[in-house]
């Protein structure tokens, strides 16, 4: 919402400057977006008369001028404008002035031997348009020496505020003036409607065929008018707020839209078919050629204003081109209507039409003052266009908007945190136009003014904001009734508390730190949240850089990683490559790795803790810690570089599971990783026979190729939701046997298809009492072995618990190991 300071002063008596006004507006919730002082840029420019203009002695295209700038001096000016001539009045800039059109600060100088002490300006040089054909020429009555900005009416700052959706009343200069006056800045000037004496019966009649289309409508014709251009003051105001002046009739409707927040429409009576204008719902197939040059296909949910030929306007949203007024109009019909705000909002959104009328009607306009506003508009048309007014045609009725609200004074402190004397609360409400209907020591009851559709909304038949309750379905009926009663009781009061606080500024409310609940607070994280944070750190500590990537990606990319259900495809993606909820964060990370590779960084390690989406339910979103590694390990003299491999990914997943408290002794690796992994170099980590905690492996070459990843790539996923909360148990006393452990190595020859894990498990289980640890320290496959065989070498730690073992006893354990391993895997001891 834009307005100028002088426009505001039509409604507000104040000496305050734009800055002070802007500060107050922001403080009371009408946030100032900008204050544009157009005069500031033109400050140094004075109206000047060219007294003498002769040919420059040394330049064909230049003239030497003598210029009077009103202070008695005659300045010498060299000028190239073809229209510079003696006697003309123009605009001069003096040395030191900044010329907006050229970006140069003017200096006095000499041009081909003639001094130039000033500059005569074109419109473009002043930053006021594109005209650069010559210097500006002003009419003969312009006062030489006066500031050009003042003369041109540009010394009127333009203030722009952003109006929140609840404050339809602040989309008018008068509404803003009222709020400022209520906040103590200035005094609201009285306003009353002029009296209009009708001279003839209205040529058009209103009917409301469908009450959904319109609540109440008034109309009046004016005949014998002349629709020329508007007077300068009106044109300037509209230009200042960014509207293009069109003709007096159109400009007048725009003026009232902004001055009083009252959108109006004017029909050209000669162009209306028939003698009736009907408010009805659009019929199938009907279209509207609108004022903006576009044609809209109307729906049965759109309310229209129709004559005998069909829709002439989308009521409250936009007028039609056909019956609009132009310079040939001699009789107009003014429409002043009240529409259902919800219907206007939906129609406007359906057709994507943003107009000043829609902005006001959907927020709610004053439902009471329609007759007064119609009279005011009639008066201005008579004043600017002449003619005589008709009687008023009316249909529908004023809605039951009158309502009261009660404020218990203690609530200003109890809800708003501000101790305010009751009298001050009452005074603030009264200044806003609330009328006191009852008052006692503890409370005040006020009548809500007609323009405040945001207060006690549920008690008004004309409802703009608020949409009633949307109670949770699971509430039992008696609970639902109780909370609904609670809302009815306290919502209007909260509205009033807000008004009282707002006018004084929220900075007046003393801040109070939250009361301490416990001297030492409870943990802020749930165990699952703490685990996610730990996962992040564990992975980063293993050299991975944590990434955060979009939860959606291209459907074709998603399809590489699993199901792409239609239910997870965005209806309105922002780009075609961001349309499918991702099946795993690994997809995002591999895409990121490919981008990094394209930038010259083929070896990266990236991790992300984020969602993978299976369906649209809350349970359908899995929390996953994912990571990818690509390329090669770093080159180093002590450690040769090598390609990353599946064991790196397995190492990441295992380290993470261990850190998160998964029961590592019971975790096994098995085939069965998703299809986007290399089928022979990937696996899952399971707890028990079914529960999959993680996947890991090399990325399938086809997937790599599809993503443009040339080098090696491995990945893992850890399913954070699948890991049970570790039980918080006291750790028992550690077992610290006093006897030295015995270490024995065994090398087994085993079939290549045997899982190393099976062998290790068999060895470990050979004597549960004595074998403390088993680890694989060598694996050999090669020429020296029979084909298809590998050699696995393990170290077994035997921990005596009661006494030192004899060699024979150790030998017994060894035999058990060889036997158990042989039985489980078919391995034989290498000799």
């Amino acid at each position: 919402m834009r307005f100028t300071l002088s426009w505001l002063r039509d409604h507000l008596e104040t000496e305050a400057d734009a800055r002070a006004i802007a500060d107050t507006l922001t403080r009371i919730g009408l946030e100032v977006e900008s204050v544009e002082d157009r005069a500031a840029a033109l400050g140094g420019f004075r109206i000047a008369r060219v007294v003498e203009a002769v040919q420059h002695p040394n330049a064909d295209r230049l003239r030497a001028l003598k210029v009077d700038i009103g202070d008695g001096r005659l300045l010498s000016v060299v000028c190239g404008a073809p229209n510079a001539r003696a006697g003309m009045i123009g605009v001069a800039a003096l040395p030191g002035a900044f010329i907006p059109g050229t970006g140069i600060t003017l200096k006095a100088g000499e041009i081909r031997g003639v001094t130039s002490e000033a500059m005569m300006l074109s419109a473009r040089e002043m930053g006021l348009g594109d005209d650069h054909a010559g210097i500006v020429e002003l009419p003969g009555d312009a006062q030489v020496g006066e500031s050009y900005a003042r003369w041109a009416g540009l010394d009127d700052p333009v203030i722009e505020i952003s109006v929140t959706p609840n404050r339809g009343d602040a989309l008018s200069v008068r509404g803003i003036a009222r709020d400022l006056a209520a906040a103590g800045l200035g005094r609201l000037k009285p306003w009353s409607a002029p009296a209009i004496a009708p001279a003839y019966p209205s040529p058009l009649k209103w009917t409301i065929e469908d009450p959904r289309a319109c609540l109440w409508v008034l109309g009046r014709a004016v005949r014998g008018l002349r629709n020329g251009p508007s007077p300068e003051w009106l044109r300037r105001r509209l230009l200042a707020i960014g509207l293009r002046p069109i003709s007096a009739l159109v400009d007048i409707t725009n003026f009232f839209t902004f001055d009083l927040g009252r959108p109006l429409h004017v029909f050209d009576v000669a162009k209306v078919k028939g003698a009736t204008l009907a408010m009805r719902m659009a019929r199938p197939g009907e279209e509207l050629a609108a004022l903006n040059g576009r044609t809209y296909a109307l729906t049965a949910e759109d309310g229209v204003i129709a004559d005998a030929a069909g829709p002439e306007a989308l009521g409250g949203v936009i007028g039609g081109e056909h019956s609009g007024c132009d310079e040939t109009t001699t009789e107009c019909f003014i429409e002043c209507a009240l529409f259902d705000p919800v219907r206007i909002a939906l129609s406007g959104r359906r057709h994507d039409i943003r107009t000043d009328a829609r902005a006001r009607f959907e927020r709610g306009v004053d439902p009471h003052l329609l007759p007064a506003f119609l009279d005011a508009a009639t008066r201005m048309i008579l004043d600017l266009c002449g003619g005589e007014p008709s009687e008023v045609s009316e249909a529908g009725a004023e809605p039951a908007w009158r309502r009261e609200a009660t404020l218990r004074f203690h609530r200003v402190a109890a809800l708003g945190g501000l101790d305010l004397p009751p009298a001050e609360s009452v005074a603030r409400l009264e200044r806003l136009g609330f009328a006191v209907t009852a008052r006692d020591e503890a409370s005040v009851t006020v009548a809500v003014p007609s323009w405040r559709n945001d207060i006690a909304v549920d008690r008004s038949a004309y409802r703009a904001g608020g949409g009633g309750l949307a109670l949770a379905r699971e509430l039992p009926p008696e609970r639902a009734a109780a909370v609904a009663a609670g809302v009815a009781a306290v919502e209007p009061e909260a509205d009033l508390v807000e008004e009282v606080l707002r006018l004084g500024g929220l900075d007046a409310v003393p801040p109070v730190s939250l009361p301490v609940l416990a001297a030492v607070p409870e943990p802020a994280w749930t165990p699952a949240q703490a685990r996610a944070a730990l996962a992040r750190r564990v992975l980063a500590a293993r050299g991975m850089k944590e990434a955060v990537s979009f939860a959606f990606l291209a459907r074709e990319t998603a399809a590489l990683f699993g199901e792409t259900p239609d239910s997870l495809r965005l209806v309105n993606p922002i780009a075609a490559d961001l349309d499918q909820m991702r099946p795993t964060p690994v997809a995002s990370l591999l895409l990121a790795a490919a981008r990094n590779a394209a930038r010259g960084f083929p070896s990266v390690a990236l991790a992300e803790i984020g969602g993978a989406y299976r369906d649209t339910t809350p349970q359908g979103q899995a929390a996953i810690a994912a990571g990818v590694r690509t390329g090669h390990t770093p080159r180093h003299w002590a450690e040769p570089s090598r390609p990353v491999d599946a064991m790196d990914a397995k190492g990441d997943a295992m380290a993470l599971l261990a850190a998160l408290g998964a029961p590592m002794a019971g975790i096994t690796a098995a085939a069965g990783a998703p299809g986007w992994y290399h089928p022979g170099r990937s696996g899952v980590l399971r707890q028990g026979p079914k529960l999959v905690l993680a996947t890991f492996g090399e990325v399938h070459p086809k997937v790599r190729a599809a993503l443009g990843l040339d080098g090696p790539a491995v990945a893992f996923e850890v399913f954070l939701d699948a890991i049970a909360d570790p039980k918080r148990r006291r750790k028992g006393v550690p077992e610290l046997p006093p006897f030295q452990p015995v270490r024995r190595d065994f090398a087994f020859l085993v079939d290549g298809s045997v899982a190393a894990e099976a062998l290790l498990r068999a060895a470990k289980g050979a004597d549960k009492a004595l074998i403390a640890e088993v680890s694989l320290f060598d694996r050999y496959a090669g020429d020296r072995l029979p084909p298809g065989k590998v050699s696995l070498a393990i170290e077994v730690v035997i921990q005596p618990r009661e006494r030192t073992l004899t060699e024979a006893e150790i030998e017994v354990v060894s035999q058990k190991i060889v036997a158990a391993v042989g039985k489980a895997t078919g391995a034989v001891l290498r000799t």
Partner: protein
Amino acid sequence: MTDDLRSLEAETAAAIAAAPDLRALEAVRIGVLGRNGSLTALLKALGAVPAEQRRERGAALNAAKAAIEAALEARRTELEAAALEARLAAERIDITLPPRPAAPGTAADGSIHPISRTMEELTAIFGAMGFTVAEGPDIESDWHNFGALNIPDHHPARQDHDTFYLPGPDGRRPVLRTHTSPVQIRTMLTQPPPIRVIVPGRTFRADHDATHSPMFHQVEGLVIGRDITLGHLKGCLIDFLRAFFGIRDLPVRFRSSYFPFTEPSMEVDIGWNRRSGELGAGGDWLEILGSGMVHPKVLANCGLDPREWQGFAFGMGIERITMLKHGIPDLRPFYESDVRWLAHTGSDPLSPASLHGGV
């Protein structure tokens, strides 16, 4: 079609089907379509065919050629897939082998994303004020994201959200949550008051330019009690902002505003210098978050009687406060996973945010 051509086609088809590998297939191709191939020879001989038969013969030869080429291509794809499968099968490793004892990298190579860092700092500071962290799903019902928060379908505020929708019946389409506020609803429905929670998380809006990302992060705050006032809202947020930015006397300004889910509503500005970007000084104001007293209808929608319970809520952009705190100029790199940016902007995995260590 003549018999010679028909038998050539049949023989070739059989040879293609029988080709055991790509090399054999290539041999078939050369034998038929190569420079001295059998079909090539027939094509060369076309000139000798009497003029009246040439057209028909030419068409038949071309059709045969196309059919053979298609069969070759189909078989090639088949053999390639089989070769890849065979290669992958041959590449099989023992996935049960124990992984290496150490990762290929160390904490010096790794880093924590600045968004995560800020979330931890938020947790530390609000945790000290008795808040716990609540979370909710990214895909929300229309009711949780809008209806329960007093944003009815037609409300002007709702258009400003530019919501991403997923398929579903009209009016009940699931949405990608446009704010973390739906978790307010989930919390009030499951946890009896008093309540103090913050909700950091991903949020989504259909907006993509230099200062907007279609996915970003917010932190929501919700405090419900019997006697929580707007004074507490101010105190809590001032306490937080000064701790988070580490400026003891950071100027904080509260302005009346409007959100459908709070009343009174306010926007919060902090003092800064617009030119230098320095926080805490300079006389300019920077909008940083929205807040207000929870709207009675929102409380009621969750089954809380607004005569009994009241409180405040706030929401702020995590990227925004992160950018301000660390002087990060551009939003887009947050989601691009450029390792250079992550290394530069990320934080040390071994120093978690803590109040005792200083946030």
